């Protein structure tokens, strides 16, 4: 065909056909594009978004620490420290001999043991090869680059004070959950709840944008105990020495701030180290100061006497017959007959007959009411786990014998903390403040005793440690102190009392011219030469008080054997 022969018409027709093809091609192309776009944007959208997110979005946890527990001077008693755990998430995990050797060397575990553990977990995924390895060791393990071991950051409690405060603090389990003591009591306060956030990562796995918070982290709050670590240490040390010296089973010392009822020290011996959780024996974990109750023996007497004075029937000068008291078949007598003596002497010589005679003349309901007001038979610690309520029978169940024996501390059971609280009421001019294990908890007190009576009883307590009292060994050089010892028979398994096993108590107040401290000492089954409260518990009281007063810089009593301290200072300068 000759092109030159084409007519104009023919040319335009060919052009139209060509244009049609080109246009068709482009329309087809754009149609394909639309199809592809629909495929990506509509049909396959979810899959693609997921894929993108999987590459870019991460959900790291936001760490929340468990709160620190400190003493009243901010000395840490319990801190969370980071540790690492070796997590296995492969269901056929195995190690080469070289890896096994290296790992056992770093972890200080026997190769055989390690192999056994791996064998036992064959076929499982998600298990721990080892938990709570120090961060130093985990770095070394990381350097080994063993496949399928993931190192997970966890936290563990450390107790820098070791066995000194262990029963009070308690401890946490491997997941850092409080399971004993303060750690349990304040679990919800201390616990940190880890959060989760969503972040965008770049190619180099750096976070480049916060997309949002999935779960807000709630860090644990710190807790400040009322404990003074220095006093706690002293109480522990002196108690330990005394238990060794008297071959006793165990013992407890409580130091209370008399004015605020804050617990400054609460020691139990023998003790345990709550950092070594594998070797904890249940009997050592008991915070006996709060969760065990005992018949207090004569240390209960000041409260019966307070009631007697408050009733108006007796005064400090009233004379009481201390000859044996006969109730039914039971005869209550003293070791030596003191004759007719005043109330102060009954206390200082610890006459059971005299006490019974006083008690029997008191109105039962009033006596019961006042004993309850002193805190006997009711919880006192503000929720310490396992706390004992003690035992104060209702007055309708007493009978004459019950009423008489209660006056010298039998048929009534108290915790050492309750005893401390009751003495604090005498020290604080008759005002009862709730016991506090936390620092700076200011609370209103409640008057349960007139201040005049409280002062009279305190004066009698001073005579107990005086030259004619039963607890001369409780006296403290330079300070006026007062208190009352108690010696109680232990109950035997058959229901009666044993004749040769005792509990030895002393509770007291210092300094008497301006009461600041209440100390309760309790020692179980001293089996040496001595067992009386005045011989076993009283010396511990004296030492604890003397050290505590010195540490707290409480000035000596003025009318003591000391020179007037102010005058002495002036002469020095």
């Amino acid at each position, binding site marked *: 065909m000759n092109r030159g022969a084409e007519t104009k018409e023919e040319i335009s027709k060919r052009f139209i056909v060509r244009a049609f093809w080109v246009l068709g091609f482009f329309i087809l192309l754009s149609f394909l594009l639309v199809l592809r776009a629909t495929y990506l944007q509509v049909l396959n959208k979810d899959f693609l978004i997921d894929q993108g997110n999987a590459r870019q979005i991460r959900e790291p946890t936001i760490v929340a620490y468990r709160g620190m527990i400190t003493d009243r001077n901010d000395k840490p008693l319990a801190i969370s*420290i980071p540790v690492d755990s070796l997590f296995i998430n492969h269901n056929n995990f195995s190690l080469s001999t070289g890896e096994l050797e290296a790992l056992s060397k770093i972890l200080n575990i026997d190769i055989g043991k390690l192999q056994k553990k791996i064998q036992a977990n064959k076929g499982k995924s998600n298990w721990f090869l080892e938990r709570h390895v120090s961060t130093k060791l985990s770095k070394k393990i990381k350097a080994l680059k063993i496949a399928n071991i993931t190192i997970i950051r966890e936290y563990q409690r450390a107790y820098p*004070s070791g066995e000194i405060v262990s029963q009070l603090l308690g401890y946490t389990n491997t997941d850092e959950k409080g399971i004993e003591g303060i750690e349990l009591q304040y679990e919800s306060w201390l616990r940190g709840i880890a959060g989760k956030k969503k972040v965008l990562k770049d190619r180099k796995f750096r976070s480049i944008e916060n997309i949002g918070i999935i779960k807000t982290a709630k860090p644990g709050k710190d807790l400040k105990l009322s404990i003074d670590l220095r006093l706690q240490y002293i109480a522990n040390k002196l108690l330990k020495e005394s238990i060794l010296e008297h071959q006793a089973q165990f013992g407890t010392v409580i130091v209370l701030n008399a004015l605020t009822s804050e617990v400054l020290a609460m020691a139990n011996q023998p003790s345990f180290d709550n950092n070594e959780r594998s070797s904890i024996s249940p009997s050592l974990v008991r915070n006996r100061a709060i969760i065990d109750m005992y018949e207090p023996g004569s240390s209960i007497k000041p409260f019966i006497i307070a009631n007697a004075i408050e009733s108006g029937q007796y005064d400090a000068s009233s004379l009481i017959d201390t000859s044996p008291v006969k109730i039914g078949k039971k005869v209550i007598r003293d070791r030596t007959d003191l004759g007719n003596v005043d109330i102060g002497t009954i206390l200082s010589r610890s006459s059971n007959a005299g006490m019974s005679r006083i008690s029997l003349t008191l109105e039962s309901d009033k006596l019961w009411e006042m004993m309850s007001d002193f805190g006997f038979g009711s919880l006192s610690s503000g929720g310490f786990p396992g706390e004992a309520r003690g035992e104060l029978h209702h007055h309708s169940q007493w009978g004459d014998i019950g009423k008489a024996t209660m006056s010298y501390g039998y048929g009534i059971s108290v915790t050492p903390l309750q005893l401390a609280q009751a003495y604090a009421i005498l020290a604080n001019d008759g005002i009862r403040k709730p016991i506090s294990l936390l620092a700076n908890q200011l609370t209103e007190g409640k008057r349960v005793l007139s201040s005049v009576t409280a002062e009279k009883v305190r004066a009698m307590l001073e005579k107990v440690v005086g030259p004619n009292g039963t607890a001369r060994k409780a006296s403290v050089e330079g300070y006026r102190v007062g208190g009352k010892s108690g010696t109680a028979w232990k109950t035997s398994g058959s229901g009666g009392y044993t004749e040769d096993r005792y509990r030895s108590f002393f509770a007291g107040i210092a300094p008497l011219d301006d009461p600041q401290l209440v100390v309760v000492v309790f020692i179980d089954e001293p089996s040496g030469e001595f067992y009386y409260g005045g011989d076993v518990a009283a010396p511990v009281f004296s030492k604890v008080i003397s050290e505590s007063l010195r540490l707290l810089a409480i000035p000596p009593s003025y009318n003591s054997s000391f020179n007037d301290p102010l005058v002495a*200072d002036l002469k020095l300068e």
Partner: protein
Amino acid sequence: MDLRRSYFQLLICIILCTASAVSIIYIKHQSRELFIELEVLNVQRDKLNIQWSELQTEENIWATPMRIEREAMNKLHLQRPPMKKIKVYEKQ
């Protein structure tokens, strides 16, 4: 005249639009850089916190009253003075 004016307005709009687009890119980049820095600092803070708690633990293990007493008595040969020699200053 009118037509020229609208062209001019269009041009300004295009320039503004481009400028804002570029600035968005720039600011986004800046914010990412800063965020990376923040994350690094956060990690550093966590590490320092950990170190602090470890140091605190260590300090308190060194400073237990038991150890202080032992060191004072055995190494420094300190003694507790008898009560009669202790003078207490009264707070003014």
